[in-house]
C-alpha cells in the first residue's frame, strides 16, 4: 500500500455526472460565502454604529447629575463600560471571522468552477481550492471552539 502511495500518481478522473455534482456544490458554496460576507459585514457595521451612537450620546450628555429626575429609558444593570467594550470587541472579532470565512468560501467556489469549466490548469485550481477550503475549516473550528467556550461559560454562570 505504501509503494502505491509513493510511486503511483493519484489522478482525479471526473465524469460529466461528477462535474455536475462539483458545479452544484460550488454554486451553493459561493452562495453561502456571499451570505457570510453579508452577515459579517452587517455585524461589524452594527457594532460600529452602536459604539458610535453610545460615544456620541455620552459625549453630548455628560455624566448624570443629582438634578436629573427622569429615570433612564434603558438600565444596563451592572454592566460597566469596560464590559461593553469587551463585548463590542468580541462581536467585531466574530464579524471579522465570519466575513473572512465567507471570502475564502467564495474564492474556493470560483476555483471549483474553474476546474469544472476547464479554464486554466486544473491541478493548480484543485490545490488552491483545497487550500482555501482548509483555511475556511480552520476558521470554522475557531468559531465552533469560541462558541462552545462562551456557551459553557454562560451555562456554568447560570448554574451557579
Amino acid at each position: 500500500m505504501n509503494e502505491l502511495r509513493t510511486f503511483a500518481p493519484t489522478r482525479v478522473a471526473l465524469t460529466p455526472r461528477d462535474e455536475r455534482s462539483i458545479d452544484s456544490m460550488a454554486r451553493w458554496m459561493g452562495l453561502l460565502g456571499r451570505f457570510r460576507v453579508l452577515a459579517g459585514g452587517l455585524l461589524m457595521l452594527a457594532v460600529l454604529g452602536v459604539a458610535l451612537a453610545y460615544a456620541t450620546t455620552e459625549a453630548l450628555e455628560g455624566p448624570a447629575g443629582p438634578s436629573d429626575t427622569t429615570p433612564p429609558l434603558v438600565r444596563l444593570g451592572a454592566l460597566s463600560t469596560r464590559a461593553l467594550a469587551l463585548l463590542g470587541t468580541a462581536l467585531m472579532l466574530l464579524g471579522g471571522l465570519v466575513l473572512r470565512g465567507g471570502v475564502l468560501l467564495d474564492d474556493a467556489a470560483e476555483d471549483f468552477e474553474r476546474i469544472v469549466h476547464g479554464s486554466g490548469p486544473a491541478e493548480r485550481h484543485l490545490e488552491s481550492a483545497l487550500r482555501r477550503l482548509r483555511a475556511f475549516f480552520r476558521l470554522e473550528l475557531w468559531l465552533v471552539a469560541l462558541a462552545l467556550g462562551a456557551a459553557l461559560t454562560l451555562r456554568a454562570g447560570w448554574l451557579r
Partner: protein
Amino acid sequence: MSATDGPDHASDDAPMAGPGGPRPAAAATREGPTARRVLELVTDPSPSVPPPGPTHRIALSDRGRSLGRSLARTMAATGLATLAGPALLLGIGGHLHGAALVVGGTVAALGGWTTYAAWRTRRGAYADDAAPSFVSAFRALRVVFVVEAVGLFLALALSCFAFSIIASFLALL
C-alpha cells in the same frame, strides 16, 4: 459497351480510366465518387478520438495529496466539535423541546455530515483514483452548505425584521 449508352454509362466509365491516369474534371462536379469519399473522411471515426468516459483527468501531486489529508484532519476536528457541541451544552441524554431540539439536531447533523466528508476526503487523498471519494465528499459538503445557507438566510431575515421593529419603536419614542 457502346458510345450510345447514355450519360449514366459515361459517368460509370470515368473512374475506370486507370488508377494512375488523370481524373476527368467533370467527375468532381457531379454526384460521383469524389464527393462520397470526402463525406466518408469526415464521418469516419478516427482512432485519435478518445472513447467516451471521464472528461477531466487531473493528476494530483504530492502537495495536493498532503493538502487533502490536512483538509480531512481539519474537517474532522470541526465536524466532531460541531457534533459534540449540542450534547455538551444541553447534556447528554437530556430532554430537548421545541426550538432547542430543532437547532441542536440540525447542528449535530451538520457535524455528522462534515465528519463523513472528512472521512471521504481522507480516503481520496490515499487512493489511486481520488475522484469517487472526492466527489462523494463534495456531495456531503454540498448538503452542509445548503443547510448552512438556508439557516444563515433565515437568521439574516429575522435580524432585519427585529431591527426594523426595534427601530420603529425607538422612532415612536
